[in-house]
Protein backbone atom coordinates (compact mmCIF):
# COMPACT_ATOMS: atom_id res chain seq x y z
CA UNK A 1 0.00 0.00 0.00
CA UNK A 2 1.46 3.34 -0.99
CA UNK A 3 0.58 6.52 0.83
CA UNK A 4 1.25 10.02 -0.35
CA UNK A 5 3.89 11.43 2.00
CA UNK A 6 2.36 14.90 1.71
CA UNK A 7 -0.61 13.84 3.84
CA UNK A 8 1.50 12.66 6.74
CA UNK A 9 2.64 16.00 8.16
CA UNK A 10 6.13 16.27 9.61
CA UNK A 11 6.87 12.59 9.19
CA UNK A 12 5.94 12.82 5.55
CA UNK A 13 8.16 15.78 5.06
CA UNK A 14 11.03 13.78 6.43
CA UNK A 15 10.23 10.97 4.01
CA UNK A 16 10.00 13.42 1.16
CA UNK A 17 13.40 14.90 1.89
CA UNK A 18 14.77 11.37 2.21
CA UNK A 19 16.04 12.20 5.67
CA UNK A 20 17.13 9.17 7.62
CA UNK A 21 18.19 9.45 11.28
CA UNK A 22 21.82 9.21 10.10
CA UNK A 23 21.36 12.34 8.04
CA UNK A 24 19.39 14.14 10.74
CA UNK A 25 22.27 13.70 13.17
CA UNK A 26 24.53 15.58 10.78
CA UNK A 27 22.39 18.74 10.76
CA UNK A 28 23.89 20.28 13.95
CA UNK A 29 27.38 19.72 12.54
CA UNK A 30 26.48 21.44 9.28
CA UNK A 31 25.05 24.32 11.29
CA UNK A 32 28.34 24.48 13.21
CA UNK A 33 30.29 24.63 9.95
CA UNK A 34 28.09 27.44 8.69
CA UNK A 35 28.55 29.34 11.97
CA UNK A 36 32.32 28.87 11.74
CA UNK A 37 32.49 30.04 8.14
CA UNK A 38 30.32 33.04 8.97
CA UNK A 39 32.61 33.90 11.85
CA UNK A 40 35.74 33.49 9.74
CA UNK A 41 34.44 35.71 6.97
CA UNK A 42 33.19 38.40 9.36
CA UNK A 43 35.93 38.50 11.95
CA UNK A 44 37.65 41.80 12.57
CA UNK A 45 40.54 40.48 14.64
CA UNK A 46 42.98 37.61 14.33
CA UNK A 47 41.82 35.85 17.50
CA UNK A 48 38.25 35.58 16.29
CA UNK A 49 39.36 33.98 13.04
CA UNK A 50 41.41 31.50 15.05
CA UNK A 51 38.36 30.55 17.10
CA UNK A 52 36.19 30.26 14.00
CA UNK A 53 38.74 28.01 12.33
CA UNK A 54 38.70 25.81 15.40
CA UNK A 55 34.89 25.61 15.28
CA UNK A 56 35.01 24.43 11.65
CA UNK A 57 37.75 21.97 12.53
CA UNK A 58 35.72 20.47 15.37
CA UNK A 59 32.62 20.24 13.22
CA UNK A 60 34.51 18.39 10.49
CA UNK A 61 35.92 15.92 12.98
CA UNK A 62 32.48 15.35 14.49
CA UNK A 63 31.10 14.60 11.03
CA UNK A 64 33.75 11.92 10.60
CA UNK A 65 32.91 10.39 13.97
CA UNK A 66 29.15 10.44 13.29
CA UNK A 67 29.59 8.81 9.90
CA UNK A 68 31.76 6.13 11.48
CA UNK A 69 28.98 5.52 13.99
CA UNK A 70 26.30 4.98 11.36
CA UNK A 71 26.98 1.25 11.28
CA UNK A 72 26.63 0.91 15.03
CA UNK A 73 27.65 2.73 18.14
CA UNK A 74 29.60 0.06 20.02
CA UNK A 75 33.33 0.20 20.53
CA UNK A 76 35.19 -1.77 17.88
CA UNK A 77 37.26 -3.78 20.35
CA UNK A 78 37.02 -7.54 20.32
CA UNK A 79 36.36 -8.92 23.79
CA UNK A 80 35.11 -12.17 25.22
CA UNK A 81 31.52 -11.00 25.17
CA UNK A 82 31.04 -10.06 21.54
CA UNK A 83 28.90 -7.14 20.51
CA UNK A 84 26.64 -7.20 17.54
CA UNK A 85 27.00 -3.75 15.92
CA UNK A 86 30.45 -2.21 15.75
CA UNK A 87 31.12 1.31 14.60
CA UNK A 88 33.43 1.59 11.62
CA UNK A 89 36.99 1.97 13.00
CA UNK A 90 38.52 3.14 9.70
CA UNK A 91 37.33 6.79 9.62
CA UNK A 92 37.91 7.12 13.34
CA UNK A 93 41.52 6.01 12.99
CA UNK A 94 42.03 8.40 10.12
CA UNK A 95 40.53 11.41 11.84
CA UNK A 96 43.07 11.15 14.67
CA UNK A 97 45.68 12.61 12.34
CA UNK A 98 43.37 15.43 11.38
CA UNK A 99 42.82 16.26 15.07
CA UNK A 100 46.58 16.49 15.62
CA UNK A 101 47.03 18.58 12.49
CA UNK A 102 44.27 20.95 13.59
CA UNK A 103 45.96 21.33 16.95
CA UNK A 104 49.30 22.05 15.28
CA UNK A 105 47.70 24.67 13.04
CA UNK A 106 46.15 26.38 16.04
CA UNK A 107 49.48 26.35 17.89
CA UNK A 108 51.35 27.88 14.94
CA UNK A 109 48.67 30.52 14.42
CA UNK A 110 48.73 31.41 18.13
CA UNK A 111 52.52 31.77 17.99
CA UNK A 112 52.21 34.13 15.04
CA UNK A 113 49.45 36.05 16.83
CA UNK A 114 51.79 36.51 19.80
CA UNK A 115 54.52 37.92 17.57
CA UNK A 116 52.12 40.19 15.72
CA UNK A 117 50.58 41.32 19.00
CA UNK A 118 53.76 43.05 20.11
CA UNK A 119 53.32 45.78 17.54
CA UNK A 120 49.53 45.97 17.41
CA UNK A 121 48.05 44.56 20.62
CA UNK A 122 44.46 44.71 19.39
CA UNK A 123 45.35 42.29 16.55
CA UNK A 124 42.88 44.01 14.24
CA UNK A 125 43.08 43.24 10.54
CA UNK A 126 42.58 46.92 9.84
CA UNK A 127 45.88 47.75 11.50
CA UNK A 128 47.79 44.79 10.14
CA UNK A 129 46.76 44.98 6.50
CA UNK A 130 48.36 48.33 5.85
Amino acid at each position, binding site marked *: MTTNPRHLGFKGWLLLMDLTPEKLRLIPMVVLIVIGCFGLLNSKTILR*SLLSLDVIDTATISIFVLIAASAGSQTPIETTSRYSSYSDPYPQAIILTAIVIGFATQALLCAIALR*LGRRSPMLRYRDLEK
Partner: protein
Amino acid sequence: MIDYQILFPFLIFLPAFLGFIGCVIPKITFPLSILMLLGYATSSLNYIGRDIAYQFTLVGDGGIQFSIDSYSFPLIFGSCITLLIVFGLFFKKFTHYYYQICLVLLTALFISFTTVDLVSMFISLELLGFSAFLLIADRNDRKSLFNAFQYLIGGGLAMLIYLIGVVQAFTFTGSFLLEDLVKAPETALCLIVAGLLTKSGVFLCGLWVPNIYSHANSQSSAVLAGCVTCAGIAPIARMSQILNPISDSMIVIGVISAVIAAIYAVFERDSGRALGWSSVSQLGIAILSPTYACSYAMQHGICKALLFSTLYSDKVDGNSDSEVINSTQNMQSNHLVTKEFLRLVVFVVASLSIMGFPFLAGFITKNWIKYDIPYEAKIIYTTAALLTSTVYARLIFDRIKDFSRQPYARLILNLKYASRNISDLFASSQNYILILSVFGLILASTAAPELFTFTAVQSAIVSAILGAILFVSVVGIQADEFVKPVTRTLDLVGAPFLVAALLLANLIYLKI
Protein backbone atom coordinates in the same frame (compact mmCIF):
# COMPACT_ATOMS: atom_id res chain seq x y z
CA MET B 1 66.56 -8.80 -5.67
CA ILE B 2 65.54 -5.53 -4.07
CA ASP B 3 62.16 -5.42 -2.43
CA TYR B 4 60.46 -2.38 -3.94
CA GLN B 5 57.80 -2.57 -1.25
CA ILE B 6 60.44 -1.44 1.22
CA LEU B 7 62.69 0.58 -1.07
CA PHE B 8 60.12 3.12 -2.23
CA PRO B 9 58.78 4.07 1.21
CA PHE B 10 62.39 4.37 2.35
CA LEU B 11 63.18 6.69 -0.55
CA ILE B 12 60.07 8.76 0.12
CA PHE B 13 60.85 9.29 3.80
CA LEU B 14 64.64 9.64 3.44
CA PRO B 15 64.62 13.46 2.97
CA ALA B 16 62.58 14.08 6.12
CA PHE B 17 64.83 11.72 8.05
CA LEU B 18 67.92 13.56 6.80
CA GLY B 19 66.27 16.86 7.62
CA PHE B 20 65.62 15.88 11.22
CA ILE B 21 69.14 14.46 11.53
CA GLY B 22 70.38 17.77 10.15
CA CYS B 23 68.91 19.60 13.13
CA VAL B 24 71.38 17.68 15.32
CA ILE B 25 74.47 17.41 13.09
CA PRO B 26 74.19 20.11 10.43
CA LYS B 27 77.78 19.89 9.15
CA ILE B 28 77.64 16.44 7.56
CA THR B 29 74.04 16.53 6.47
CA PHE B 30 74.28 19.36 3.98
CA PRO B 31 76.66 17.60 1.51
CA LEU B 32 74.71 14.37 2.06
CA SER B 33 71.46 16.08 1.15
CA ILE B 34 73.04 17.54 -2.00
CA LEU B 35 74.16 14.05 -3.02
CA MET B 36 70.71 12.67 -2.27
CA LEU B 37 69.01 15.36 -4.37
CA LEU B 38 71.39 14.62 -7.25
CA GLY B 39 70.55 10.93 -6.95
CA TYR B 40 66.80 11.56 -7.03
CA ALA B 41 67.13 13.95 -9.97
CA THR B 42 69.17 11.58 -12.14
CA SER B 43 67.09 8.51 -11.35
CA SER B 44 63.78 10.29 -11.98
CA LEU B 45 65.16 11.84 -15.18
CA ASN B 46 65.64 8.31 -16.52
CA TYR B 47 61.96 7.53 -16.16
CA ILE B 48 60.41 10.75 -17.50
CA GLY B 49 58.31 10.07 -20.56
CA ARG B 50 58.37 6.31 -20.10
CA ASP B 51 55.17 4.51 -19.34
CA ILE B 52 56.17 2.92 -16.06
CA ALA B 53 53.83 2.51 -13.14
CA TYR B 54 54.52 0.80 -9.87
CA GLN B 55 51.83 0.53 -7.24
CA PHE B 56 52.23 -0.59 -3.69
CA THR B 57 50.32 -0.51 -0.43
CA LEU B 58 51.90 0.64 2.77
CA VAL B 59 51.11 -1.22 6.01
CA GLY B 60 49.52 -4.29 4.46
CA ASP B 61 45.89 -4.77 3.54
CA GLY B 62 43.67 -1.69 3.60
CA GLY B 63 46.69 0.55 4.05
CA ILE B 64 47.81 3.62 2.18
CA GLN B 65 48.11 3.17 -1.56
CA PHE B 66 50.92 4.75 -3.51
CA SER B 67 51.35 4.84 -7.24
CA ILE B 68 54.66 5.91 -8.75
CA ASP B 69 53.90 6.61 -12.38
CA SER B 70 54.28 9.06 -15.22
CA TYR B 71 52.62 11.82 -13.16
CA SER B 72 55.20 11.64 -10.40
CA PHE B 73 58.54 11.49 -12.22
CA PRO B 74 58.59 14.94 -13.85
CA LEU B 75 57.45 16.63 -10.65
CA ILE B 76 60.02 14.78 -8.53
CA PHE B 77 62.73 15.80 -10.99
CA GLY B 78 61.51 19.41 -11.01
CA SER B 79 61.40 19.80 -7.25
CA CYS B 80 64.82 18.18 -6.79
CA ILE B 81 66.38 20.49 -9.37
CA THR B 82 64.69 23.52 -7.79
CA LEU B 83 66.07 22.64 -4.38
CA LEU B 84 69.52 22.01 -5.87
CA ILE B 85 69.50 25.44 -7.52
CA VAL B 86 68.41 27.12 -4.29
CA PHE B 87 70.91 25.18 -2.17
CA GLY B 88 73.70 25.99 -4.59
CA LEU B 89 73.02 29.65 -5.07
CA PHE B 90 72.00 30.69 -1.56
CA PHE B 91 73.82 28.39 0.83
CA LYS B 92 75.73 31.31 2.29
CA LYS B 93 72.51 33.12 3.19
CA PHE B 94 70.68 30.25 4.84
CA THR B 95 69.36 31.00 8.28
CA HIS B 96 69.17 28.29 10.92
CA TYR B 97 67.25 25.21 9.91
CA TYR B 98 66.46 26.55 6.45
CA TYR B 99 67.59 23.54 4.48
CA GLN B 100 66.17 21.15 7.07
CA ILE B 101 62.76 22.70 6.43
CA CYS B 102 63.36 22.30 2.70
CA LEU B 103 64.11 18.60 3.15
CA VAL B 104 60.95 17.99 5.18
CA LEU B 105 59.09 19.89 2.47
CA LEU B 106 60.57 17.50 -0.09
CA THR B 107 59.11 14.48 1.68
CA ALA B 108 55.69 16.14 1.81
CA LEU B 109 56.02 16.81 -1.92
CA PHE B 110 56.98 13.21 -2.67
CA ILE B 111 53.96 11.92 -0.77
CA SER B 112 51.59 14.28 -2.53
CA PHE B 113 53.06 13.35 -5.95
CA THR B 114 52.81 9.62 -5.43
CA THR B 115 49.84 8.89 -3.18
CA VAL B 116 46.41 7.97 -4.55
CA ASP B 117 44.80 8.04 -1.12
CA LEU B 118 42.75 11.13 -0.29
CA VAL B 119 43.56 11.25 3.43
CA SER B 120 47.31 10.83 2.91
CA MET B 121 47.00 13.64 0.39
CA PHE B 122 45.39 15.79 3.10
CA ILE B 123 48.18 15.04 5.55
CA SER B 124 50.94 15.68 3.03
CA LEU B 125 49.35 18.95 1.93
CA GLU B 126 49.08 20.09 5.55
CA LEU B 127 52.74 19.22 6.16
CA LEU B 128 53.56 21.12 2.99
CA GLY B 129 51.55 24.06 4.31
CA PHE B 130 53.48 24.10 7.59
CA SER B 131 56.85 23.96 5.81
CA ALA B 132 55.82 26.68 3.38
CA PHE B 133 54.62 28.74 6.35
CA LEU B 134 58.06 28.49 7.94
CA LEU B 135 59.74 29.41 4.64
CA ILE B 136 57.53 32.49 4.24
CA ALA B 137 58.11 33.60 7.83
CA ASP B 138 61.85 33.15 7.37
CA ARG B 139 62.35 36.83 6.61
CA ASN B 140 61.05 37.51 10.10
CA ASP B 141 59.58 40.98 9.77
CA ARG B 142 56.03 42.04 10.50
CA LYS B 143 54.69 41.93 6.97
CA SER B 144 56.08 38.52 6.15
CA LEU B 145 54.73 37.17 9.43
CA PHE B 146 51.30 38.50 8.54
CA ASN B 147 51.61 36.99 5.04
CA ALA B 148 52.51 33.66 6.61
CA PHE B 149 49.49 33.97 8.88
CA GLN B 150 47.22 34.60 5.91
CA TYR B 151 48.71 31.65 4.05
CA LEU B 152 48.24 29.32 7.00
CA ILE B 153 44.68 30.33 7.83
CA GLY B 154 43.64 30.29 4.15
CA GLY B 155 45.38 26.97 3.55
CA GLY B 156 43.94 25.49 6.75
CA LEU B 157 40.41 26.46 5.78
CA ALA B 158 40.93 25.11 2.24
CA MET B 159 42.12 21.80 3.65
CA LEU B 160 39.07 21.61 5.94
CA ILE B 161 36.83 22.18 2.91
CA TYR B 162 38.75 19.39 1.20
CA LEU B 163 38.23 17.12 4.21
CA ILE B 164 34.47 17.73 4.19
CA GLY B 165 34.46 16.75 0.53
CA VAL B 166 36.45 13.62 1.34
CA VAL B 167 34.04 12.51 4.07
CA GLN B 168 31.06 13.07 1.79
CA ALA B 169 32.73 10.99 -0.90
CA PHE B 170 33.42 8.32 1.73
CA THR B 171 29.74 7.95 2.60
CA PHE B 172 29.00 7.16 -1.05
CA THR B 173 32.02 5.08 -2.03
CA GLY B 174 33.16 3.49 1.21
CA SER B 175 36.85 4.11 0.56
CA PHE B 176 39.35 6.93 0.46
CA LEU B 177 40.88 6.04 -2.90
CA LEU B 178 41.20 8.58 -5.67
CA GLU B 179 39.94 6.19 -8.33
CA ASP B 180 36.71 5.56 -6.40
CA LEU B 181 35.73 9.21 -6.78
CA VAL B 182 33.89 8.19 -9.96
CA LYS B 183 30.98 7.14 -7.77
CA ALA B 184 31.11 10.28 -5.59
CA PRO B 185 28.45 13.04 -5.83
CA GLU B 186 29.18 16.40 -7.45
CA THR B 187 29.30 18.39 -4.22
CA ALA B 188 32.10 16.20 -2.87
CA LEU B 189 34.10 16.65 -6.06
CA CYS B 190 33.67 20.43 -5.92
CA LEU B 191 34.86 20.68 -2.33
CA ILE B 192 37.88 18.45 -3.02
CA VAL B 193 38.88 20.36 -6.14
CA ALA B 194 38.46 23.75 -4.43
CA GLY B 195 40.86 22.65 -1.69
CA LEU B 196 43.43 21.39 -4.19
CA LEU B 197 43.19 24.53 -6.34
CA THR B 198 43.90 26.72 -3.32
CA LYS B 199 47.04 24.76 -2.55
CA SER B 200 48.25 24.89 -6.14
CA GLY B 201 47.50 28.60 -6.42
CA VAL B 202 45.28 28.86 -9.48
CA PHE B 203 43.39 32.09 -9.99
CA LEU B 204 40.78 33.20 -7.50
CA CYS B 205 41.97 30.66 -4.97
CA GLY B 206 45.55 31.64 -5.62
CA LEU B 207 45.28 35.30 -4.68
CA TRP B 208 47.86 34.70 -1.94
CA VAL B 209 50.57 33.95 -4.52
CA PRO B 210 51.63 37.46 -5.62
CA ASN B 211 51.60 38.92 -2.09
CA ILE B 212 53.84 36.23 -0.73
CA TYR B 213 56.26 35.83 -3.65
CA SER B 214 56.97 39.54 -3.78
CA HIS B 215 57.75 39.92 -0.10
CA ALA B 216 59.46 36.69 0.97
CA ASN B 217 63.21 36.14 0.67
CA SER B 218 64.45 35.30 -2.82
CA GLN B 219 65.34 31.77 -1.80
CA SER B 220 61.94 31.20 -0.18
CA SER B 221 60.14 32.56 -3.24
CA ALA B 222 62.19 30.27 -5.45
CA VAL B 223 61.28 27.20 -3.39
CA LEU B 224 57.63 28.24 -3.16
CA ALA B 225 57.30 28.90 -6.88
CA GLY B 226 59.32 25.86 -7.86
CA CYS B 227 57.92 23.10 -5.68
CA VAL B 228 55.11 24.07 -3.35
CA THR B 229 52.54 25.05 -5.94
CA CYS B 230 53.30 21.88 -7.95
CA ALA B 231 51.90 19.75 -5.12
CA GLY B 232 48.28 20.28 -6.11
CA ILE B 233 48.94 19.65 -9.79
CA ALA B 234 49.50 15.89 -9.61
CA PRO B 235 46.20 15.03 -7.84
CA ILE B 236 44.27 17.42 -10.09
CA ALA B 237 45.80 15.78 -13.16
CA ARG B 238 44.98 12.32 -11.80
CA MET B 239 41.40 13.37 -11.07
CA SER B 240 40.76 14.97 -14.43
CA GLN B 241 42.16 11.90 -16.16
CA ILE B 242 39.44 9.68 -14.72
CA LEU B 243 36.57 12.18 -14.27
CA ASN B 244 35.20 13.81 -17.39
CA PRO B 245 33.15 16.58 -15.70
CA ILE B 246 36.22 17.62 -13.71
CA SER B 247 38.48 17.77 -16.75
CA ASP B 248 35.92 19.96 -18.57
CA SER B 249 35.66 22.32 -15.59
CA MET B 250 39.44 22.42 -15.31
CA ILE B 251 39.62 23.76 -18.86
CA VAL B 252 37.26 26.60 -17.92
CA ILE B 253 39.12 27.43 -14.70
CA GLY B 254 42.50 27.11 -16.39
CA VAL B 255 41.60 29.39 -19.26
CA ILE B 256 40.13 32.04 -16.93
CA SER B 257 43.16 31.83 -14.67
CA ALA B 258 45.61 32.01 -17.56
CA VAL B 259 44.10 35.14 -19.10
CA ILE B 260 43.07 37.17 -16.05
CA ALA B 261 46.26 36.58 -14.09
CA ALA B 262 48.33 37.44 -17.17
CA ILE B 263 46.41 40.72 -17.55
CA TYR B 264 47.14 41.50 -13.90
CA ALA B 265 50.79 40.70 -14.50
CA VAL B 266 50.98 43.01 -17.53
CA PHE B 267 49.76 45.98 -15.53
CA GLU B 268 51.80 45.23 -12.42
CA ARG B 269 54.75 47.55 -11.86
CA ASP B 270 56.63 45.59 -9.21
CA SER B 271 58.73 42.79 -10.72
CA GLY B 272 58.20 40.33 -7.87
CA ARG B 273 54.43 40.71 -7.97
CA ALA B 274 54.44 40.42 -11.76
CA LEU B 275 56.30 37.13 -11.47
CA GLY B 276 53.74 35.96 -8.89
CA TRP B 277 50.79 36.77 -11.13
CA SER B 278 52.54 35.12 -14.05
CA SER B 279 52.98 32.02 -11.89
CA VAL B 280 49.21 31.93 -11.32
CA SER B 281 48.66 32.23 -15.05
CA GLN B 282 51.15 29.48 -15.91
CA LEU B 283 49.63 27.02 -13.43
CA GLY B 284 46.26 27.79 -14.99
CA ILE B 285 47.73 26.68 -18.31
CA ALA B 286 49.20 23.58 -16.67
CA ILE B 287 45.84 22.22 -15.48
CA LEU B 288 44.37 22.44 -19.00
CA SER B 289 45.71 19.09 -20.09
CA PRO B 290 45.91 16.19 -17.63
CA THR B 291 48.52 14.33 -19.68
CA TYR B 292 51.14 17.04 -19.85
CA ALA B 293 50.25 18.99 -16.70
CA CYS B 294 53.13 17.55 -14.72
CA SER B 295 55.77 18.20 -17.40
CA TYR B 296 54.53 21.76 -17.77
CA ALA B 297 54.55 22.34 -14.04
CA MET B 298 58.09 20.94 -13.88
CA GLN B 299 59.42 23.24 -16.60
CA HIS B 300 57.62 26.23 -15.10
CA GLY B 301 58.87 25.43 -11.62
CA ILE B 302 62.52 25.20 -12.64
CA CYS B 303 62.35 28.40 -14.71
CA LYS B 304 60.55 30.28 -11.91
CA ALA B 305 63.14 29.16 -9.39
CA LEU B 306 65.90 30.47 -11.66
CA LEU B 307 64.00 33.72 -12.21
CA PHE B 308 63.45 34.37 -8.52
CA SER B 309 67.06 33.49 -7.72
CA THR B 310 68.41 35.96 -10.25
CA LEU B 311 65.71 38.65 -10.06
CA TYR B 312 67.83 41.04 -8.00
CA SER B 313 71.53 41.56 -8.31
CA ASP B 314 73.43 39.85 -5.55
CA LYS B 315 74.43 42.87 -3.54
CA VAL B 316 70.94 44.34 -3.23
CA ASP B 317 69.56 41.67 -0.98
CA GLY B 318 72.85 40.45 0.43
CA ASN B 319 75.77 42.53 1.57
CA SER B 320 75.12 45.44 3.83
CA ASP B 321 78.46 47.17 3.37
CA SER B 322 77.53 48.96 0.19
CA GLU B 323 80.50 51.28 0.13
CA VAL B 324 83.05 48.53 -0.23
CA ILE B 325 81.09 46.64 -2.82
CA ASN B 326 80.21 49.64 -4.92
CA SER B 327 83.73 50.47 -5.89
CA THR B 328 84.42 49.07 -9.31
CA GLN B 329 87.89 47.85 -8.50
CA ASN B 330 86.58 45.79 -5.67
CA MET B 331 83.94 44.23 -7.86
CA GLN B 332 86.59 43.33 -10.39
CA SER B 333 88.80 41.70 -7.82
CA ASN B 334 85.96 39.71 -6.32
CA HIS B 335 84.92 38.17 -9.63
CA LEU B 336 81.56 39.76 -9.07
CA VAL B 337 81.27 41.38 -12.49
CA THR B 338 81.09 38.14 -14.43
CA LYS B 339 78.79 36.69 -11.83
CA GLU B 340 76.35 39.55 -12.17
CA PHE B 341 76.50 39.23 -15.94
CA LEU B 342 75.84 35.50 -15.70
CA ARG B 343 72.86 36.13 -13.46
CA LEU B 344 71.50 38.50 -16.08
CA VAL B 345 71.99 35.89 -18.81
CA VAL B 346 70.24 33.23 -16.74
CA PHE B 347 67.34 35.59 -16.07
CA VAL B 348 66.92 36.32 -19.77
CA VAL B 349 67.17 32.66 -20.80
CA ALA B 350 64.67 31.51 -18.16
CA SER B 351 62.25 34.28 -19.18
CA LEU B 352 62.55 33.26 -22.82
CA SER B 353 61.91 29.67 -21.82
CA ILE B 354 58.64 30.59 -20.08
CA MET B 355 57.69 32.67 -23.12
CA GLY B 356 58.07 29.50 -25.18
CA PHE B 357 60.96 30.68 -27.30
CA PRO B 358 62.25 27.99 -29.70
CA PHE B 359 65.23 25.80 -28.73
CA LEU B 360 64.46 26.15 -25.02
CA ALA B 361 62.62 23.84 -22.63
CA GLY B 362 59.45 25.94 -22.53
CA PHE B 363 58.89 25.55 -26.27
CA ILE B 364 58.47 21.78 -25.94
CA THR B 365 56.06 21.81 -23.02
CA LYS B 366 54.02 24.68 -24.49
CA ASN B 367 53.55 22.80 -27.75
CA TRP B 368 52.62 19.58 -25.97
CA ILE B 369 49.83 21.39 -24.15
CA LYS B 370 48.82 23.26 -27.30
CA TYR B 371 48.23 20.08 -29.31
CA ASP B 372 46.39 18.40 -26.46
CA ILE B 373 43.60 20.87 -25.66
CA PRO B 374 40.31 21.33 -27.57
CA TYR B 375 40.12 23.92 -30.32
CA GLU B 376 37.93 26.39 -28.39
CA ALA B 377 40.44 26.59 -25.58
CA LYS B 378 43.35 26.94 -28.02
CA ILE B 379 42.38 30.48 -29.06
CA ILE B 380 42.33 31.74 -25.48
CA TYR B 381 45.48 29.77 -24.78
CA THR B 382 47.27 31.65 -27.54
CA THR B 383 46.04 34.94 -26.07
CA ALA B 384 47.46 33.97 -22.71
CA ALA B 385 50.78 33.06 -24.35
CA LEU B 386 50.89 36.49 -25.99
CA LEU B 387 50.20 38.23 -22.67
CA THR B 388 52.90 36.11 -21.04
CA SER B 389 55.36 37.27 -23.69
CA THR B 390 54.41 40.85 -22.90
CA VAL B 391 55.03 40.33 -19.19
CA TYR B 392 58.42 38.78 -19.73
CA ALA B 393 59.42 41.37 -22.34
CA ARG B 394 58.90 43.98 -19.63
CA LEU B 395 60.73 41.95 -17.00
CA ILE B 396 63.73 41.40 -19.30
CA PHE B 397 63.74 45.09 -20.22
CA ASP B 398 63.64 46.15 -16.56
CA ARG B 399 66.36 43.71 -15.58
CA ILE B 400 68.71 44.82 -18.39
CA LYS B 401 68.04 48.47 -17.57
CA ASP B 402 68.80 47.78 -13.94
CA PHE B 403 72.03 46.02 -14.90
CA SER B 404 73.24 48.69 -17.28
CA ARG B 405 72.85 51.36 -14.62
CA GLN B 406 75.44 49.71 -12.40
CA PRO B 407 78.91 51.23 -12.51
CA TYR B 408 80.52 47.94 -13.42
CA ALA B 409 78.32 47.26 -16.42
CA ARG B 410 80.73 48.73 -18.94
CA LEU B 411 83.50 46.43 -17.76
CA ILE B 412 81.73 43.44 -19.22
CA LEU B 413 81.70 44.83 -22.74
CA ASN B 414 85.20 46.20 -22.59
CA LEU B 415 87.50 44.00 -24.70
CA LYS B 416 90.48 44.87 -22.55
CA TYR B 417 89.02 42.87 -19.68
CA ALA B 418 87.70 40.05 -21.87
CA SER B 419 90.31 37.43 -21.02
CA ARG B 420 90.06 38.21 -17.36
CA ASN B 421 86.26 38.03 -17.46
CA ILE B 422 86.41 34.64 -19.11
CA SER B 423 88.80 33.30 -16.51
CA ASP B 424 86.52 34.70 -13.80
CA LEU B 425 83.74 32.62 -15.27
CA PHE B 426 85.09 29.53 -13.58
CA ALA B 427 86.08 31.18 -10.35
CA SER B 428 83.17 30.26 -8.11
CA SER B 429 80.91 27.26 -7.78
CA GLN B 430 77.79 29.39 -8.17
CA ASN B 431 78.88 30.29 -11.71
CA TYR B 432 78.99 26.61 -12.59
CA ILE B 433 75.41 26.17 -11.42
CA LEU B 434 74.26 29.16 -13.47
CA ILE B 435 76.08 27.97 -16.61
CA LEU B 436 74.79 24.43 -16.15
CA SER B 437 71.21 25.62 -15.78
CA VAL B 438 71.41 27.59 -19.03
CA PHE B 439 72.78 24.57 -20.89
CA GLY B 440 70.19 22.37 -19.22
CA LEU B 441 67.35 24.56 -20.46
CA ILE B 442 68.76 24.44 -23.98
CA LEU B 443 69.47 20.71 -23.90
CA ALA B 444 65.96 19.94 -22.67
CA SER B 445 64.59 21.21 -25.97
CA THR B 446 66.16 18.24 -27.76
CA ALA B 447 63.80 15.91 -25.90
CA ALA B 448 61.16 16.09 -28.62
CA PRO B 449 62.71 16.97 -31.99
CA GLU B 450 59.50 16.19 -33.87
CA LEU B 451 57.93 19.37 -32.48
CA PHE B 452 60.34 21.64 -34.34
CA THR B 453 58.14 22.16 -37.37
CA PHE B 454 58.47 25.36 -39.35
CA THR B 455 55.05 26.69 -38.31
CA ALA B 456 55.62 26.02 -34.63
CA VAL B 457 58.99 27.81 -34.57
CA GLN B 458 57.54 30.63 -36.64
CA SER B 459 54.53 31.11 -34.35
CA ALA B 460 56.73 31.04 -31.24
CA ILE B 461 59.07 33.71 -32.60
CA VAL B 462 56.18 35.84 -33.85
CA SER B 463 54.46 35.59 -30.46
CA ALA B 464 57.66 36.76 -28.74
CA ILE B 465 58.02 39.71 -31.12
CA LEU B 466 54.32 40.60 -30.79
CA GLY B 467 54.70 40.46 -27.04
CA ALA B 468 57.59 42.93 -27.19
CA ILE B 469 55.54 45.26 -29.42
CA LEU B 470 52.55 44.99 -27.08
CA PHE B 471 54.83 45.83 -24.18
CA VAL B 472 55.98 49.01 -25.90
CA SER B 473 52.37 49.98 -26.52
CA VAL B 474 51.11 49.43 -22.96
CA VAL B 475 54.17 50.65 -21.09
CA GLY B 476 52.79 54.17 -20.80
CA ILE B 477 49.42 53.23 -19.28
CA GLN B 478 49.07 54.37 -15.70
CA ALA B 479 47.59 51.24 -14.25
CA ASP B 480 47.98 51.99 -10.57
CA GLU B 481 44.34 53.03 -10.22
CA PHE B 482 42.71 49.87 -11.47
CA VAL B 483 45.23 47.20 -10.52
CA LYS B 484 45.30 47.20 -6.77
CA PRO B 485 47.03 44.46 -4.80
CA VAL B 486 44.60 42.07 -3.11
CA THR B 487 45.74 41.93 0.50
CA ARG B 488 42.57 41.66 2.58
CA THR B 489 42.36 38.44 4.52
CA LEU B 490 38.65 38.11 3.80
CA ASP B 491 39.30 37.93 0.06
CA LEU B 492 42.03 35.34 0.47
CA VAL B 493 40.03 33.19 2.86
CA GLY B 494 36.71 33.39 1.09
CA ALA B 495 37.94 32.50 -2.38
CA PRO B 496 37.73 28.68 -2.00
CA PHE B 497 34.02 28.93 -1.05
CA LEU B 498 33.32 30.96 -4.16
CA VAL B 499 35.21 28.55 -6.40
CA ALA B 500 33.47 25.54 -4.85
CA ALA B 501 30.07 27.16 -5.41
CA LEU B 502 30.90 28.08 -9.01
CA LEU B 503 32.18 24.57 -9.71
CA LEU B 504 29.01 23.07 -8.26
CA ALA B 505 26.87 25.33 -10.43
CA ASN B 506 28.95 24.31 -13.41
CA LEU B 507 28.75 20.59 -12.72
CA ILE B 508 25.01 20.49 -12.00
CA TYR B 509 23.44 23.15 -14.19
CA LEU B 510 25.80 24.66 -16.75
CA LYS B 511 27.66 21.49 -17.71
CA ILE B 512 30.35 23.21 -19.77
